[in-house]
C-alpha cells in the first residue's frame, strides 16, 4: 500500500478534494509530538487498489516559518519520526490563481517526488475571465495536470486512474526555475558535504540563503556556508527567481480578461467597507448568536425530556437496589445528560461557522475585528471563537484551529472560557429573578443580565494582553490573511465538519464527564444515610453529612468573605465539574424536588432562608457576588479536558483553572466588601 500526500495553498479546494477522494474513510488525529492536526484517509482506486492519502496543512511556502510549514517539510523529507515519507504528491493548484500557486509548486518540484497536479476551481475560470492551455501547462510543469470542475465524478475517476499509472510509472518534475549557476553549484556542494541523508536542493538552498534553523551540519558544510555568506548576496534572490519562473509559465499558459470586475470585488466593496461592512458584521453575528440560543432550545428540551425519561426508566428497573439505582439514574444519566444536552448547540454553531468559513465571509469578519483584538496579542481570527463561546466554550476552543499562529491560538484558548457561556444562564436567571427583580424591577433585571454577560467579554481583552506580557510572548510574524473569493459552500464539507465536531464533543467531553459524574455522585452519597422517611428522597440533612457536604462546610470559611454560607459553598463545590449542577444542588439543599431555574418553590425557600443569627442568607449583594464568582470561575471539567487536549499538556488546564478561579474569587471579594455593603 502506498501513501500519497495532498498539498497546496490554502483556499484551493484541497479539503474538498480530499473529502471526495476518501469519502467517509477518514481519520483525524495528531502528528506525534506536535499539535498539528493530521488528516488521513483511504482512497479506493480502480482495479481493487487503494492508497492512503494524507492531507497536509495548506501552506503558501515550504519555507518553515510556522509550525504547519515546519511539519510539512519534515513529512515530505521523511524526517518526522513515526511518520513515513509519502511516496507521491498530489499538488493542488487553484486554476484561477495560477501564478501564485506555482510558487509553491516550484519548491515542491525540488522534493524530487512523483507528482500529479490537480487543477481545481476549473468551473470558475469563466466567471473570473481566465482561460488556460492545459497541454502547454502540462509541458511546462513536466507532470500530468488534471482539471477538476467542482465535485465532478468523471474527473475524479480520471484523477484516480492517473494515480494508478503514477504508481506504476512515477513522473518526477524536472523544471528549471533559473537560479544562478553559483547558487546551484554551492547547493550541490553542500548536499555532498552534509551527513544528512537525502538533503533536497530546496533545503540546501534555504540553508545557504537564509540559514535554515535546526540543520545539523558537518564542519566542512559549515565552512562552506561561511564562505558563501561572505560573498555579497541578496537573500530575496530565491523568491524573486521563483516568482519570475511562475510568471513566465502563467503568462504563456493563461489568457486573462482583466476588465471583469469580479462578483467578489463587488460584494467586498460593501462587506469590508468600514461602515457598511461593520453593520453587516454585527447583523451576522447577532443572527449567529440568536440561532444558537433559539434554534437549539427545542432540541435541548427534547433531550432533557429524553434523559429524564431514561432516568425514570432506570429508577424503575433498579428498584430494590437503591445504591445502583442512584448511581445510574442520578450519577451517570444525570451527570452525562447535563453535558450531552449541549450537543444541539455544538451542531448548530459548527454548521453556521462552516458555512461562513467556506463562503469566505469569515476572513472578512476577521479583517474587520483585527484592530480591536490586535493590541492584546490576539488577532482578528480570534473573534469567531470568542463569539462562539457565548454558546459554549468547548466548540469555541475547537474552532481556534483556524488560527495558524500557535501563540495567538493559545492566548485565545486561555481567555475564551471567561466569556459567559449558556451554562451560566440558568444561574443568572435564578439569582436575578429571585433577588434583583422583586426589589429593583424588571428594567434593572434586564440590565443585570446584560452586565453579567459583558463582564466576561470585557475581561478577556486585558487578560489576553496580560498573558502576552508574561510567559506567553507574542509572535513576530506579520498578520497576514488571505481574503478568498466568495464561493458557495460545498455541503459535503459543511456536513462533514459539523459531524466531526459533534463526534469529538460527545466522545471526549463525555468520557471525562462520565468519570466525574460517578465521583461526584459518590462524594454526595457516602457515607450512606437514611433517606427522608416521608418523601423517600435524599434530604438536605443527608447531603450535609456526605463527603461533599463536609467538604462544603469545611470550605465555607474561605467563601465567607464573599458572603456565601455553607449551602452556597456546597453548591459551588458541586458545580466545579459542570456549572448547571449548582441548581440541582441548591434544589436538594433547599428541599425543592426537581429544581430548575423556573422553580418557584426554590426561589421562595432561598428568599426566606436565614442564617443562625436571623439575618437573611441571600441579600442582593450575596446574589450579585455569587453571580460574579460564577461568571468568572472555571467550573467546567469538559472545558479543562478540551484545553488539555488542544494545548497538549495538563499544565495549561491547571493554569486555566487556577487563574480563572483566582480571578473569580478576587473580583467577587472586592465587590462584596465594597459596593456590596451598600446593597445590604
Amino acid at each position: 500500500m502506498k501513501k500519497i500526500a495532498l498539498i497546496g495553498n490554502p483556499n484551493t479546494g484541497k479539503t474538498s478534494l480530499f473529502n471526495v477522494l476518501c469519502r467517509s474513510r477518514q481519520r483525524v488525529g495528531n502528528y506525534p509530538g506536535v499539535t498539528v492536526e493530521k488528516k488521513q484517509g483511504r482512497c479506493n482506486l480502480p482495479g481493487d487498489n487503494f492508497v492512503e492519502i494524507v492531507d497536509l496543512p495548506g501552506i503558501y511556502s515550504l519555507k518553515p516559518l510556522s509550525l504547519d510549514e515546519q511539519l510539512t517539510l519534515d513529512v515530505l523529507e521523511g524526517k518526522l519520526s513515526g511518520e513515513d515519507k509519502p511516496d507521491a504528491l498530489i499538488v493542488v493548484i487553484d486554476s484561477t490563481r495560477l501564478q501564485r500557486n506555482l510558487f509553491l509548486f516550484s519548491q515542491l518540484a525540488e522534493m524530487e517526488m512523483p507528482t500529479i497536479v490537480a487543477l481545481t476551481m476549473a468551473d470558475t475560470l469563466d466567471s473570473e475571465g481566465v482561460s488556460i492551455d492545459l497541454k502547454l501547462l502540462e509541458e511546462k510543469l513536466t507532470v500530468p495536470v488534471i482539471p477538476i470542475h467542482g465535485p465532478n465524478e468523471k474527473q475524479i475517476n480520471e484523477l484516480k486512474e492517473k494515480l494508478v499509472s503514477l504508481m506504476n510509472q512515477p513522473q518526477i518534475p524536472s523544471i528549471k526555475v533559473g537560479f544562478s549557476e553559483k547558487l546551484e553549484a554551492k547547493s550541490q556542494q553542500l548536499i555532498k558535504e552534509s551527513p544528512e541523508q537525502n538533503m533536497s536542493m530546496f533545503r540546501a538552498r534555504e540553508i545557504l540563503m537564509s540559514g535554515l534553523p535546526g540543520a545539523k551540519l558537518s564542519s566542512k558544510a559549515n565552512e562552506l556556508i561561511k564562505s558563501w555568506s561572505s560573498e555579497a548576496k541578496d537573500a530575496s534572490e530565491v523568491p524573486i527567481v521563483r516568482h519570475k519562473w511562475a510568471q513566465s509559465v502563467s503568462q504563456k499558459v493563461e489568457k486573462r480578461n482583466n476588465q471583469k470586475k469580479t462578483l467578489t470585488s463587488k460584494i467586498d466593496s460593501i462587506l469590508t467597507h468600514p461602515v457598511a461592512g461593520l453593520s453587516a458584521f454585527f447583523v451576522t453575528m447577532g443572527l449567529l448568536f440568536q440561532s444558537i440560543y433559539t434554534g437549539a432550545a427545542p432540541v435541548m428540551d427534547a433531550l432533557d425530556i429524553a434523559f429524564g425519561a431514561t432516568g425514570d426508566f432506570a429508577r424503575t428497573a433498579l428498584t430494590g437496589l437503591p445504591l445502583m439505582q442512584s448511581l445510574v439514574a442520578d450519577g451517570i444519566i444525570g451527570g452525562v445528560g447535563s453535558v450531552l444536552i449541549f450537543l444541539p448547540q455544538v451542531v448548530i454553531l459548527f454548521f453556521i461557522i462552516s458555512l461562513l468559513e467556506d463562503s469566505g465571509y469569515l476572513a472578512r469578519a476577521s479583517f474587520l475585528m483585527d484592530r480591536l483584538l490586535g493590541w492584546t496579542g490576539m488577532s482578528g481570527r480570534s473573534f469567531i471563537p470568542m463569539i462562539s463561546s457565548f454558546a459554549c466554550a468547548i466548540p469555541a476552543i475547537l474552532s481556534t484551529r483556524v488560527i495558524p499562529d500557535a501563540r495567538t491560538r493559545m492566548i485565545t484558548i486561555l481567555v475564551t472560557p471567561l466569556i459567559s457561556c449558556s451554562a451560566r444562564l440558568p444561574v443568572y436567571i435564578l439569582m436575578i429573578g429571585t433577588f434583583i427583580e422583586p426589589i429593583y424591577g424588571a428594567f434593572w433585571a434586564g440590565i443585570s443580565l446584560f452586565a453579567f454577560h459583558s463582564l466576561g467579554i470585557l475581561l478577556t481583552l486585558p487578560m489576553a494582553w496580560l498573558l502576552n506580557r508574561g510567559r506567553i510572548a507574542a509572535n513576530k510574524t506579520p498578520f497576514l490573511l488571505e481574503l478568498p473569493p466568495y464561493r458557495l459552500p460545498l455541503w459535503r464539507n459543511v456536513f462533514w465538519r459539523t459531524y466531526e465536531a459533534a463526534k469529538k464533543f460527545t466522545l471526549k467531553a463525555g468520557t471525562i464527564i462520565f468519570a466525574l459524574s460517578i465521583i461526584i455522585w459518590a462524594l454526595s452519597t457516602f457515607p450512606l444515610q437514611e433517606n427522608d422517611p416521608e418523601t423517600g428522597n435524599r434530604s438536605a440533612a443527608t447531603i450535609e453529612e456526605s463527603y461533599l457536604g463536609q467538604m462544603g462546610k469545611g470550605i465555607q470559611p474561605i467563601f465567607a468573605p464573599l458572603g456565601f454560607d455553607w449551602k452556597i459553598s456546597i453548591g459551588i463545590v458541586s458545580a466545579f465539574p459542570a456549572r448547571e449542577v449548582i441548581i440541582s444542588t441548591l434544589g436538594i439543599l433547599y428541599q425543592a424536588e426537581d429544581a430548575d431555574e423556573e422553580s418557584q418553590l426554590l426561589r421562595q425557600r432561598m428568599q426566606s432562608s436565614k442564617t443562625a443569627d436571623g439575618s437573611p442568607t441571600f441579600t442582593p449583594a450575596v446574589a450579585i457576588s455569587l453571580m460574579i464568582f460564577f461568571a468568572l470561575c472555571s467550573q467546567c471539567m469538559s472545558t479543562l479536558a478540551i484545553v488539555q487536549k488542544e494545548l497538549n499538556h495538563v499544565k495549561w488546564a491547571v493554569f486555566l483553572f487556577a487563574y480563572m478561579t483566582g480571578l473569580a474569587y478576587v473580583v467577587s471579594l472586592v465587590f462584596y466588601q465594597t459596593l456590596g455593603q451598600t446593597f445590604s
Partner: protein
Amino acid sequence: MKDTLAILEPQESAEVVGFTPSYAEQVRLVELGLVPGSIVKMIQSAPLGDPIEIEIMDTKLCIRKSDAESIEVKRSP
C-alpha cells in the same frame, strides 16, 4: 522619505520597489508576491484604518499598517 504601501489611497495601485529595513522580516510577504517589479493595489482599510486590504498577484490579502510601512513603492504620477 520613500513612499510605502501604507500611504496608498483606496483603489490606488503602485509598483513594489524594495523593503525597509530588510527583506528578512518580510519574507512571507515577498513569497506571497510582493517582489520588486510587481504591482500592488490598495483596496481599502478596515474601520480605524488598520489592517488594510491589498491585492497582489490576483490575491486579496489583509496586512497590518505596520507591515505595510516596510514595503517601498513607486506611485504613478
